């Protein structure tokens, strides 16, 4: 859009070559039009109508969400519970876990000859649809050791089987671990590629100066990888705030409501219960939660352009 207006500027000055600039502006609009129309139809219109729908009863939907719906937001005890806070857990531990293990694997794998093999293995879950991933992990977490891989493993150490997905204490941890398993490959591949971009001279210089490996990791690698790390983190955060599939397949939000997430609540209210305005309010909350992350993302891209 801004390109088009810049191109149109000479036109105001009158003289020059009106015919040609006219042509340029027209082509530019033509190029931009499909994108703008598509965005308008499929993004802007639904967003606005969702927001309007959520205010159907004035502010009541929002008041109900945050004060009268403990399945969504409950701060009467500590730690707080409900779908909103479960999502906070996901953002912290899932994103943190993916970045931590992704970085660890990238750095460690770079030191061995079979790096490609390790990365292929770690990346493999990326090829599995989230629903299939959910089914696989349901089997892993099954309580009967005959089926449940994890409990069969614990049985070797004489630990009684745990109902990972049935216990309110364990269910979120279990789901987050499954989620990390599914996404750590993404973090690994991006960070590993970035790692390759760091000049070996810097590392050699550090070693010559007597830096320990841990110092090299924390003082050199991590700061130099801060940009790709934040790219990975932001992408994962955006994905996880919208998390629905794993929950739907593995627990349907249970036991009780202890593993619901914001997106699952939206589905539950809007589609399963046909409570569209209330579901829309949940969607708007999700959007508001995501906005700062997106703004950060856009700003950073702009900053990068300046650097280039």
């Amino acid at each position: 859009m801004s390109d088009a207006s810049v191109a149109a500027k000479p036109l105001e000055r009158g003289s020059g070559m009106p015919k040609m600039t006219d042509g340029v502006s027209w082509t530019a609009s033509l190029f931009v039009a499909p994108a703008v129309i598509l965005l308008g139809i499929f993004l802007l219109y639904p967003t606005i109508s969702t927001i309007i729908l959520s205010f159907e009863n004035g502010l009541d939907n929002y008041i109900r969400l945050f004060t009268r719906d403990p399945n969504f937001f409950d701060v009467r005890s500590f730690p707080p519970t409900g779908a909103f806070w479960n999502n906070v857990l996901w953002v912290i531990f899932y994103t943190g876990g993916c970045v931590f293990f992704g970085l660890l694997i990238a750095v460690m794998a770079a030191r061995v000859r079979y790096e490609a093999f390790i990365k292929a293995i770690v990346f493999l879950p990326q090829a599995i649809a989230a629903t299939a991933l959910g089914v696989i992990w349901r089997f892993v977490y099954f309580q009967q050791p005959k089926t449940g891989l994890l409990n069969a493993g614990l049985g070797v150490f004489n630990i009684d089987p745990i109902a990972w997905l049935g216990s309110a204490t364990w269910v979120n941890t279990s789901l987050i671990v499954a989620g990390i398993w599914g996404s750590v490959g993404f973090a690994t591949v991006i960070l590993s590629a970035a790692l390759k971009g760091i000049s070996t001279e810097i590392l050699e210089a550090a070693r010559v100066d007597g830096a320990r490996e841990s110092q090299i990791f924390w003082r050199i690698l991590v700061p130099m990888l801060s940009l790709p790390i934040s790219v990975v983190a932001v992408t994962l955060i955006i994905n996880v705030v919208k998390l629905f599939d794993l929950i739907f397949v593995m627990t349907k939000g249970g036991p009780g409501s202890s593993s619901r997430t914001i997106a699952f609540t939206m589905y539950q209210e809007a589609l399963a219960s046909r409570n569209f305005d209330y579901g829309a309010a949940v969607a708007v909350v999700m959007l508001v939660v995501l906005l700062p992350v997106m703004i950060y993302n856009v700003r950073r891209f702009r900053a990068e352009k300046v650097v280039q």
Partner: protein
Amino acid sequence: MTRFRMVAPIAVLALMLTACPASTTSNSPGASGGAGSSGASGATIEVTSLWGGAEAEAFQAVLDAFTADTGINVTYTSQRDEYSTVLSNRIEQGDPPDVAIIPGIGFLRSFAKDDLLIPLADLGLDTSALADAYAPNLSDMGVSVGTVNDVPLAIMVKLNSKSTIWYDPSRFSENGWETPSDWDGLVALTDQIKSDGATPWALGASDSWTLTDWFESIYLRQAGEEAYDTLFSADGDWTDQSVKDAIATMTEILNDDNVAGGIDGALATAFVDGIGLVFSTDPTAEMYYEGGFVGGIATGDVNDALVSGETIDFFDFPEIDGSGSKITVGGDVMAAFTNEPGVAEFMQYLASADAGKAWVAGGTIISPMAGVESGDYPEAVQKEATQIVESDLARFDGSDLLPGGPDLGTVLQTAIQDPGAVDGALSDFQTQVDDAWAELNG
């Protein structure tokens, strides 16, 4: 390359333009009706529900009989998973089925609120005559269950008992266990099985509706039918002591000591997996409470070596404190979304003994219609049919009467896992139910 760049956006635009008219033509609702003359013969209507497999075959027999009778064709569309979501979507898009058979009345209410259903009267159906078509102890329920704000919108067409506790008679006689007739007897049997070193109960409570069925069965017997009717209406008080008492009674049996895998394990077990714990080739528990449909699923999907009456059978959910033979039932209602030719005829037909007889022959359902005799059923379901017809009093599955949204099952999951949290969970639930009723009626 440059030339391509110029062409690409135009091609996209062209595609979009050509796409538009295509989508508008396919959007006209109810185009399936065809000729709209006086006689509906030759018309085609679409009926949707969630049955597949044997259940769909049994229903198809009814449709075939109807077509042979009237010349009206019926297309059956099956939607196994996420039925409510898909149905709701079709309606939003202006492409509703002509008739839908819906499990759960709560869901019906939200359609009623948006005026999406054709009232029975507008279809030209006589509702008082319809009520008379039901078996005597169900005649209260048949039409009233589909009545929203005094407008009859739907009728019950099939049901199952929800007062059946399933067990393996051969294992019971081997161990000298006897089926109980009252609640104390059931608790004593549970203790006896435990002391004999076996696990008394399986529970598939990750599907939370199994818990609502437990609760309703107990509440109806313990608190009585008046309290039951009030509780599952807009006047219901979930913080009442009778609700807490019923939950306490429930946890006499549903606790870590009695249930396979403990309560945590049960909450990670799905409904069908729970059946497997009792009736698979390698069983780990002895009893499973759920509706009459368990028999068909156990023999059909879980273990085809089971023999009805020998290795699988049910006893009645016992009475509590001399409550008599009260039962809860779960059923499906039928409602019309269009008034196409043939719809009224179809609904009238389904409320007849003829349709009931054709349907029950498949062995998957119980018909609520008067005139369907025990002998019309295949042997495996005769016992369930008899239980329903001979009960003193029947009540519809209460959680299906509540408005969609707040989930009683979720509350009960919390209640059996953490009995200390019952009071708080119930008062939270009360708030949510009030909001949901207000939304529906307001």
